[in-house]
């Protein structure tokens, strides 16, 4: 089984098996997966991203918009409606 990681701007964005990304050993994959499963919970103002050294970096996020321009159903219809 080929394992890989996807790096973006010095952070581990994702891991996977199959094609793509930077190849990992299975041990490295399991180590990163364990780190992902230990992610600190997101709050309304902070979230975390995974550094390549498998430590979590806290960063600020914008608080929720109490009055979005489009509700979720409309957003999904806009994104996913229609045929090719």
């Amino acid at each position, binding site marked *: 089984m080929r394992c890989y990681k996807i790096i973006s701007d010095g952070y581990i964005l*994702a891991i996977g098996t*199959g094609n793509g990304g930077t190849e990992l050993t299975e041990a490295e994959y399991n180590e990163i997966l364990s780190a992902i499963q230990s*992610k600190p919970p997101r709050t309304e103002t902070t979230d975390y991203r995974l550094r390549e050294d498998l430590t979590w970096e806290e960063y600020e996020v914008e608080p929720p918009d109490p009055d979005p321009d489009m509700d*979720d*159903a409309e957003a*999904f219809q806009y994104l996913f409606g229609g045929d090719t």
Partner: protein
Amino acid sequence: MAVDKLVDSTQLDADLTSVADAIRTKGGTSADLAFPAEFVSAIAAIPTGGGGANLATGSFTLSADTLASALPAINVGFDYSTIIVYTNASWLGNGKRSAGGIFYRIASGKTYGQNVSTNTSGSSANIGAPTTSNSEAAKINYVGQKVGQTFVFAGDSQWPGYYISGLQYFWAAW
């Protein structure tokens, strides 16, 4: 050649025939085999892997909530006849948890923000349509059939302010 052992030739012939029959059955042949050279070559010629359809599988796990615009496109990189995707994600609309839905879509050789053809009838369907209106993550099993297509799991960059949470999917194609 020196004689160092007496054997029962009838039994020996029966034993060799038994081995030759097994080789012929496995290799799907019927010709006589001379011991030992043709035994060896016949065994070497037997196909490996069972001759079944090529199967490719893969998985993907996001490390954290990710901006929609930052999701990578992953090229599965093969032509397939059938693909099954199991995926589990929550859609964080505008920074808050909102209706669950499957964000990733299988794009036939396409990139972000484009619809796909994903079913046998040839009409388009988007895996991303939500199947639940509550805040729980939606799960979907999808079976599509499109011969000769290379599929790309792609995110969508149309909503840069939206986050995807807990995206994980597993796929198999053959």
